[in-house]
């Protein structure tokens, strides 16, 4: 009952005209950014963050959440129509979405993708609504050792699971950890690695870093690939009626949407895994449980429904650890955490007690945002497609200008612009070298919190690190964190031994 009355308060906050406007702008902007190849939700949130300056925190976060699920859906538009995934979470959508488009059923694939995203997102918001406050209550009993272990778990799993090479993921996380200590030490006031630059005393701004690593780096990488514009979409594909899947489509997809939702939400909650892995796993489940697995890859609509439900479900699931524990588990939620801190809101269990109107306003907006998403996707797909037909070099230049001015506007500082360009070049090189940027950004966001909780834990234990392994929750979390480091190492050694045996 309490949950429902809280939801009503949340819905009234979200239905405020200005908040409605922000969620609409967020969803549209997110869909456009998400549809641009290379730019995913994390880049979308980082690039569009300056639009939230000067607004109320609740309106700001509502818009960012809108960008998040808008971008998550936007990625599927290009996946289906031109076989170019907007981001990694929509890669699986290309497998059946594009063959459907080739067979003249692109409209149905787009429609199913929108409906599956809507259903997945909405079911997960309901679960989120009941689960998050309960988890926040449990998290209130967490002390510094539990938080330290939780952050260590988030970092190690993300570093070990993103990208092809776990070693490079760990290296990125360690570099991020180092960057997080740049600035004045909170305890002694000593400057660390500031090279005498006053601008670095406050530390490396992680929003600037995210704009460079996710935004500029992606633009530089796609700019050299896409010299020509290849968006040729037959208009007949985008007729309104063609966007509605048939009853037969629904019959074969319903079950796959449901399991995609469950898998997506569960994986989204886990630190490190996220929407991409959720879409891969749910596609695998859909194929193995289908009566016609041979149709997968040739235009099976359930092959679009399952991963699309899963990636939107995962984006809601990823909000659980961010809001209840204050520990983001993915690149997108790490950037959102940066935004929350910018609004002077510290995500974590106390947020539910101290700022209920904020949390419930956000939950309310998730319902409204999901409805907005389906309405906009059905009404505005032809418009998005037209935007995508603007030549890529021009689109890239526009996004680049937006990033540079957006970075400047963070602190009215040209130094931030220089830093964003620096991180852009570093990110471009990392992309080329197949080093994931997400662990670096997450470590940069969590670094200071990690250092503080380490110090506080050791104060509690009079300097003994055993405290992390003697308390049940922190011990379990540390065990999983250590396993996340040990498992890739074990796999690497086993691979080496096998290679030697066959040589």
């Amino acid at each position, binding site marked *: 009952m309490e949950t429902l009355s809280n939801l009503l308060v949340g819905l009234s906050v979200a239905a405020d005209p200005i908040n409605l406007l922000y969620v609409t702008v967020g969803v549209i902007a997110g869909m456009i950014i998400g549809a641009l190849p290379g730019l995913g939700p994390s880049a979308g949130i980082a690039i569009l963050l300056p639009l939230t*300056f000067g607004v109320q925190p609740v309106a700001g976060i509502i818009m960012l959440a809108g960008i998040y699920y808008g971008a998550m859906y936007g990625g599927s538009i290009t996946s289906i129509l031109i076989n170019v995934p907007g981001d990694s979470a929509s890669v699986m959508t290309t497998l059946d979405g594009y063959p459907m488009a080739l067979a003249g059923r692109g409209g149905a694939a787009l429609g199913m993708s929108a409906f599956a995203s809507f259903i997945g997102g909405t079911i997960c918001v309901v679960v989120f609504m009941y689960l998050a406050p309960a988890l926040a209550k449990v998290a209130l009993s967490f002390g510094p050792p539990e938080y330290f272990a939780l952050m260590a778990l988030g970092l190690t799993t993300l570093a070990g699971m993103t990208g092809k090479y776990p070693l490079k993921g760990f290296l990125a996380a360690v570099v991020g950890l180092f960057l997080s*200590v740049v600035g004045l030490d909170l305890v002694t006031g000593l400057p660390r690695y500031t090279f005498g630059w006053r601008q670095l005393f406050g530390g490396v701004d992680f929003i600037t870093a995210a704009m460079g690593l996710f935004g500029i780096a992606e633009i530089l990488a796609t*700019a*050299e690939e896409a010299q020509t514009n290849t968006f040729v979409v037959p208009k007949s594909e985008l007729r309104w009626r063609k966007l509605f899947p048939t009853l037969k489509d629904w019959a074969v997809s319903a079950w796959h949407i449901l399991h995609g939702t469950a898998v997506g939400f569960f994986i989204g909650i886990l630190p490190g895994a996220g929407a991409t892995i959720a879409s891969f796993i749910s596609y695998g489940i859909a194929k193995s449980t289908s009566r016609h697995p041979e149709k997968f890859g040739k235009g099976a609509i359930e092959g679009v429904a399952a991963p699309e439900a899963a990636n939107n479900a995962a984006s809601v699931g990823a909000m659980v650890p961010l809001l209840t524990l204050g520990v983001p588990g993915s690149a997108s939620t790490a950037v959102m955490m940066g935004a929350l801190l910018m609004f002077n809101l510290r995500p974590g269990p106390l947020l539910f007690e101290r700022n209920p109107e904020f949390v419930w306003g956000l939950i309310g907006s998730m319902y409204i945002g999901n409805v907005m998403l389906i309405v906009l996707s059905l009404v505005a797909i032809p418009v998005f497609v037209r935007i995508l037909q603007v*030549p890529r070099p021009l689109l890239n230049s526009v996004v680049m*200008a937006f990033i540079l*001015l957006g970075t400047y506007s963070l602190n009215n500082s040209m130094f931030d612009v220089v830093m964003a360009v620096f991180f852009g070049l570093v990110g471009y090189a990392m992309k080329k*070298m197949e080093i994931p940027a997400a662990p670096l950004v997450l470590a940069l966001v969590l670094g200071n919190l*990690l250092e503080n909780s380490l110090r506080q834990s050791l104060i509690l234990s009079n300097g003994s690190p055993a405290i992390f392994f003697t308390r049940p929750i922190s011990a379990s979390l540390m065990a999983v964190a250590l396993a996340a480091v040990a498992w890739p190492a074990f796999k690497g050694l086993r691979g080496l031994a096998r290679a030697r045996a066959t040589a």
Partner: protein
Amino acid sequence: MRRADRIMSILTLLLGIYVLVTALGLQYRLDDLPGPGFVPFWSGVAMIALSLIILAGTFTRRAGGSPGPFSRESVRNMAASLGGCVAMVGLTRILGFLVALGLLVGFFARLWGTRSWAATILIATLLPVILYFLFGMALGVSIPKGVLGF
């Protein structure tokens, strides 16, 4: 890729050594608790260890001979993009942020393959105006002005 990995791991190895050495100059422990040098010290150690493992991997047979990730064209593209950004930062002092940004947008549009001069000029002049209304007017950002007064 093998050569690129080798260069990258040597660079991160050097960074790790630098971090480790400078961390020793900060206090490792303070009142029996981790001091300001604690996290940098262990970051340096981990960076050195991981770099050495990746470096060692480039000498094994498994490293393979996949093509290098940086083509001549990609290096030229990156250098030109960097040059454009540096010029923009420099020109901001003289021409103001928006004019410099407009020039950069035009430069990027050409660099990345726009053939039409009309489209280039249109985007280079129109975009700063739109951004001025969005950031300067709607969001109240104080954008640096130049000698032209905007």
